[in-house]
């Protein structure tokens, strides 16, 4: 079937395994010239591995062609809500690849990695200042890993208080990222969902009703996934503490409040940050990230191992906290991501980070103002870093789904916003421009969204079959899940 349009190759049909020729190779491996040691018994060995055989240039062309099918933050505006797709400074990559950092072995003695450890010490102290929660561990590899650390810390603290058997519930708002309830369950807790009030904040009455001696913690994303500040969260923190529970902060949206308000001052006990969001490290199409946890004095003994500490002698050490929940990774976390995040912090300083949060919030409110009226806005109040519109009017009146709107936006040259999240907004379109988009880019994005809203009226079929200009059209996801093909096969 492929090839019926001239110049349109069915590129995806041919993997690297289907390219190349037997006997070609991309690199040379020298053979051993010294004395041969006999190989182990055959029953321990294999005959061969099936792998592609491409020349070096052939392999480079294949992966270059693949990269050209992708859209990155360097390609254009990427307003993916909740993901903080800001510009990734290139100097961060340059410094992370300095051989002194890059070649450091994870089992090296502390003497041999003082540079790496000092960076982690200073980054930790910066994050402690910015969050108001001065005790930090860099063990978690990503946000959800940081959540797991935080909830396990709460569990261990409750165990030491003799209350783990009775405090089995964690309260999670219905607007939370799915990782929050999934994490609570992984740590052995039951999840109670808290509804969102009409103004977009947590429903205070439900919280007050649910808070009792069975509650271990409340997990709150601040600002929340509607891009709204949790009004009165400092009072809720007081209520949680009176009831004997802990307040966990999901810092996924930290970009909105860097330098403006501190989790610790508000009464949060432990938070995780996503350095691949707020601190500009490249997301790599799904990682690597870094999800450090920052906590209060009370929870510090439970932090994951290791933490970095400076002695009176100026020597930086890796330490296992006294009542640590243990390790989360074999080694010390995603160190090269931390180097990038540190470089970002040092490039901006406090004024730069405040300018970033201020501009991120201004940009989101600019989107809100310009797009107002063209799409529904279920929670219509000033926002912080992102704004959640709804395509429910288009769905109801025109039979066009948010899904179609997102796909059509691709034809207008943009990566679509996050769609269908948070779950409490029907046909959600969650837009986070970040501070690194100039106003003209935001205006162009809004113009495109308005044009798509107009097209939804005049030519809905164009939306229903979009995108038209992407490297590939809509894919059959249902069949992909029903009859999974998950790897190359010789005859596929």
């Amino acid at each position, binding site marked *: 079937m492929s090839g*019926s349009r001239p110049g349109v190759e069915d590129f995806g049909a041919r*993997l690297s395994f289907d390219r190349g020729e037997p006997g070609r190779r*991309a690199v040379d491996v*020298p053979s051993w010239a*010294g004395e041969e040691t006999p190989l182990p*018994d055959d029953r321990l*060995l*294999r005959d061969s591995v099936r*792998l*592609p055989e491409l020349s070096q240039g052939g392999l480079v062309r294949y992966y270059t062609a693949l*990269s050209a*099918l992708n859209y*990155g*933050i360097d390609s254009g505006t990427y307003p993916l809500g909740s*993901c903080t797709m800001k510009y*990734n400074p290139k*100097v961060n990559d340059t*410094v992370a*690849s300095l051989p002194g950092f890059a070649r450091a072995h*994870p*089992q*090296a*003695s502390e*003497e041999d990695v*003082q540079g*790496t450890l000092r960076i982690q010490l200073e980054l930790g102290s*910066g994050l402690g200042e910015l969050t108001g929660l001065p005790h930090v561990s860099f063990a978690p*590899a*990503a946000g*959800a890993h940081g959540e797991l650390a935080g909830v*396990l810390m709460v569990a261990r603290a409750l165990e030491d208080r003799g209350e783990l058997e009775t405090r089995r519930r964690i309260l999670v708002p219905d607007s939370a990222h*799915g*990782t929050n309830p999934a994490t609570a369950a*992984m740590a052995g807790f039951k999840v109670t969902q808290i509804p969102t009030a009409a103004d977009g904040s947590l429903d205070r009455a439900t919280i007050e009703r649910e808070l009792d001696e069975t509650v271990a913690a409340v997990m709150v994303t601040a600002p929340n996934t509607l891009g709204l500040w949790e009004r009165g969260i400092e009072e809720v923190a007081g209520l949680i503490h009176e009831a004997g529970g802990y307040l966990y902060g999901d810092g996924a949206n930290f970009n909105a*409040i860097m330098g403006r*308000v501190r989790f610790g001052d508000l009464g949060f006990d432990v938070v995780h940050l996503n350095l691949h969001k707020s601190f500009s490290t*490249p997301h*790599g199409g*799904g*990682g690597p*990230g870094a999800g450090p946890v920052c906590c209060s004095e009370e929870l510090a003994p439970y932090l994951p191992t290791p933490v970095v500490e400076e002695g009176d002698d100026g020597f930086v050490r890796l330490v296992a906290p006294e009542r640590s929940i243990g*390790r989360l990774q*074999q080694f010390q976390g*995603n*160190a*090269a991501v931390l180097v990038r995040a540190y470089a970002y912090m040092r490039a901006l*300083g406090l004024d*730069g980070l405040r300018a970033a949060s201020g*501009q991120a919030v*201004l940009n989101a409110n600019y989107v809100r*103002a310009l797009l107002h009226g063209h799409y529904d806005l279920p929670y219509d109040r000033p926002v*912080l870093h992102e704004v959640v519109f709804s395509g429910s009017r288009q769905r109801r009146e025109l039979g066009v789904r948010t899904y179609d709107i997102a796909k059509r936006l*691709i034809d207008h040259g943009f990566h679509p916003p996050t769609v269908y*999240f948070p779950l409490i907004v029907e046909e959600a379109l969650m837009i986070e421009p970040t501070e690194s988009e100039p106003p003209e880019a935001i205006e162009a994005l809004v113009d495109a969204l308005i044009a798509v809203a107009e097209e939804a009226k005049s030519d809905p079929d164009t939306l229903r079959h979009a995108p038209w200009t992407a490297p590939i*059209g809509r*894919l059959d*996801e249902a069949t*992909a899940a029903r009859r*999974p*093909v998950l790897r190359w096969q010789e005859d596929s």
Partner: protein
Amino acid sequence: MSSRSSGSPHPYIPATDVDRARMLERIGAPEVGALFADLPAAMRDPAIDLPPALPEADLIALMEEHAGANAAPTRPEFLGAGAYRRSIPAITGYLTGRSEFATSYTPYQPEISQGTLQAAFEYQSVVCELTGMDVSNAGLYDVASATAEACLLAARVTKRRAVALLEPIHPGTAEVVRTYARGAGLGVDTVVSPDAIREEHACLVAQQPDFLGTIVDLEPLAGAAHGVGALFVAVADPFALGLLRAPGDAGADIVTGEGRDLAGAPNYGGPSLGLFAARTKYLRQMPGRIVGRTRELADGNGGGEQRTGYVLTLQAREQFIRRERATSNVSTAQALIAVAFTITVQALGPSGMRGSAVLCYQRAHDAASRIAMLPGYEIPERGPWFQEFLVRGPIPAADLAAQLAARGIGAGLDVSARPEPEARDALLFAVTEATPDAHVDALIGALAEIGGAA
């Protein structure tokens, strides 16, 4: 800064004062600070102590200074114990450095993410080939967390409440399994023989090669696990699998592994990459992202060709849909590292994967036999081994390591506190295909000198 007072606040933040004034007017806000009115006034704009901003040249100079405080990157280094120096083709870093790969998010919009998705499918294919398994996910954080996830999977499918780890296993892996198991309420038993596995165990976990470098015959271990209705989880070094029997052929139900070494520099351990592959029957219990192959919809816009494409699939397992009933909380993992791993393995190809593994084996054995010939040194063997070996010298292990360090050589890991008799007074050295000859010569010279003085 005063000369730029009307300009943008930073090279990373483009809006100028003029832009801001125009935007604020459109919004109807007097100033940026007013947009934060919902935050509690008493807590707003707190005093925060951060070092001042640095221009790029100063930042680079500072970072060079920090990097210089680490051990010289050219120093002879014989640490292994979970991270091994590998020969990484130049094209790996070149290709993964392309910003279309590096600066994209998780591929939620497949039409403009085929690069990430098809590369992930390549990765899953490569992992299945190396491990001998049916299915692979798109990668987890690292080998230890992947192994912990394997234990949780085994507990879910067997409905058993304990797991067994066969020693010698990497202590970091064992510790991460304990961290996860404690949260899930599972017991963790370390065993020194597969005979110790019982019907209360959900799985037996064994490392290949084991923590002290020995090549393990996995088949009897799989047999022991299956004999009590438990799963067998192999924690395998994917580089060694260029030569060693695929764990799937030996009966493994799940294979985990560490992909960092084949992706690039050690980077003090991270970014890492957790391999996770399994039998098809456990597919819907697997953690993490999975990429599937499909076609364009027939009523789409592809001109009727229904070209081949790739999507995130089986998402009903995942946290963003299933929430507290998800198979794992994993979201962002190590996608770019998985692409790097794939490119290295494919650049090596079938002959290079085997050739490198054989070269590694030969070089390590040659170095070990040279050390064994030095007076006062012995290489305590526990069976056939791959790239790592124990060295017992004429002086206590810690002193030997210190003496080597004083000569500018990074010694192997001190394992003298371990319970295995062969590890008594021993350091664990790694020599690989990427260890320069001159480094091995320097090591032999230094050991001879230390031995002569002892």
